[in-house]
């Protein structure tokens, strides 16, 4: 066996939109913030939220690598394990994504399962 490179940290490309830009610190550009976050290997989305000091209730629509992972009131992504180079985007509660404009769009596996089990098959704009 060859020697495997040991990765102890991962870097995540984080986008914070709208009011959430304030959690970007120096990267805050007013309407958005884009920052590179270093996290321990094995970190989950919840770990990232902790590192940002962003309470999960304050975010709504969320994407991991362009895949929908959370909607308002439906957050099956807290245990999602992040990988090096992942792009994660958080939107504030004023954002929206109507069903007709997301029907058939990419979702994380957790989100796809959560949507199927939702009453109304995930047609809604908000979930609770």
């Amino acid at each position, binding site marked *: 066996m060859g020697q495997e490179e040991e990765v102890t940290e991962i870097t995540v490309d984080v986008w914070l939109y709208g009011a959430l830009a304030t959690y970007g610190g120096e990267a805050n550009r007013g*309407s*958005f913030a*884009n920052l590179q976050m270093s996290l321990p290997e094995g970190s989950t989305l919840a770990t990232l939220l902790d590192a940002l000091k962003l309470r999960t209730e304050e975010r709504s629509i969320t994407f991991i690598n362009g895949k929908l992972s959370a909607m308002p009131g439906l957050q099956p992504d807290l245990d999602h394990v992040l990988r090096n180079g992942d792009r994660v985007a958080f939107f504030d509660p004023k954002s*929206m994504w109507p069903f007709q*404009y997301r*029907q*058939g769009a990419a979702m994380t596996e957790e989100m796809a399962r959560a949507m199927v089990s939702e009453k*109304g098959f995930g*047609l809604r*704009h908000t979930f609770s």
Partner: protein
Amino acid sequence: MAVICLFYKEKLKTKLVSLGAPGEGRWKRRAILSGNGITMASIGKRRLNHPEERRKDVMWILRLNMTERTYRLEEVPEAYRYLGGRAMTSTLVGDEVPPLCHPLGPNNKLVFAPGWVTGTPASTSSRISVGGKSPLTGGIKESNAGTSWGPYLANLQIKALVVEGQPKEKDKYWMVYLTWDGDTRKPKAEFYTADEFAGKDLYDVFPKVYERFGTGVAVAGCGVAGEYGYANAGIVFNDLGRRPSRYSGRGGLGSVLGSKRLKFIVINPKGAPPVAIADRALFDQGKKKLDEAIRSHDVTKPKGGLNTYGTAVLINIMNEAGGLPTRNFSSGRFEGAAKIAGESIFEGNKARLGKEVYNHACSPGCIIQCSNTWFKADGKEHTSCVEYESDWALGANCGIDNLDHVAELVRLCNAYGLDTIETGTTLAVAMEAGVASFGDGQKAIELLHEMGKGTALGRILGGGTEFTGRAFGIPRVPTVKGQSMPAYEPRAVKGIGITYATTPMGADHTAGYTIAPEILSIGGKADPLSPEGKAALSRAFQATTAFIDSTGHCLFIAFPILDIASGFEGMVEECNGVLGTKWTGEDVVRIGMEILRKERAFNEGAGLGKAHDRLPEFMKYEPLPPHNQVFDVPDSALDSVFEGQ
């Protein structure tokens, strides 16, 4: 066509038998519809006339004969009584326009119809539908806008205004002034020459029209794009600030108006009676429910998503989803998206003005108020409004990430009378052809001026996206039935691809809104994740959207009525209150399907069949970054949307 028309009428008659007489002697309020105000309030009460008399008050079809410059008033036929908005325009076009006529010839007609509740105190309901044969698609077209012009037309007791014929003189323009004749209790039309308004920037012309007729009027018309006969010319309406900024943009209907040499239709509603409401108590109950739903939903409430960020709130969302068409649909992600997004408009205005600016209403009585304004660095207004579709078409799809350039392009579309979506997608095809570089905002502005001046290049661009693709030999042309796709990439969002392909309108993002969770049952037992299930959902979305397009409500009530059941009930009760009908949720789908059948029958007569219910071929073989997907919904699923319906 005639057979289908009769079938439709018979179905309506059957329904009417069971409706019962509208209530008598109820109190009604008059809506205040000032050119500057945005509220509807009670300003007085009077007894309604006997229902039979009242019926005469509310039901006119006004025909403007542009060959002779005369007009005729007809009482609305019994079978048309319960039509409004899109149901009215599509029925009239289907009944009266030869499907094979030339869209810019004398046999095409342009129909304007307010919705069922337009002109009443129903909130967010000032939509006007415009219909005709489309110069862009060659099929039927309905395109609606929010403006005071809609309720003013309803106040004149006009259920439909039909512009027909064509002057023999091609070098003269006309305008029509509509008022209420209190003596005869009928609307009245006067024709004037409008040559002095032709060939000019609408921002220069609108103030002169208001100067002539007073600030209490509403204006519909066309810009130079309509005069030139461009296939991407829209019909302009005033907003509440008297800007030429509200458009029935899609499908080139502005050129149908221009082909009839009708530059403006001005309405003064002074002295006109209010829109009759058959059952005031039921109407009030429905309005209360719908208002509460709109005011409490996160998307539509005051200082909520739409009121804060406008429709451009979707730029960042679609970009993250990998579904924001970029540089002529060659990618689903734009690196400059965050710079032109709704959040950036809000924060940019705050930085330039030193205060937060929330959005305003486009039309009387709107409580969502999603229209934004972009301000220049010196604090002066640049343009209103930068909608999501305009922002995307003239921004991301052209590779432009400068909001000042995007705003100027929007302003020029308003000035010349162009559809912002079709214009942006046309520019992107021209950029791919090398006419300009992607991202070159200044050159894009120059190209808009070419269109405004009517140069040879401008006229090619005015022909629309598909025409420009042919002129320059470009195969990547994102159109269906000749109309360009809006801002949702069907390779990333496959559900909307089904609607783009199959709607009678050509690619249209407003053709299939999600209205009520109950529509899931319409698909029967089909798995909503299967192609057949998605097709069934698209059919249901299209039917319920056709209904809302007939109510006169803005489509954005879809957000609260989907999530809040009482909101949906309220919408239906408002309609029943105005019309005296007893419709239920099931009727919403039934009526919507009847409208779609009518539209598809017209298209069939015009030569548009299954082969036209397809997305452009390149989407089947070009994977779209970042998800690298092609559009793989089988043709059989597309055909199943309306098969046997």
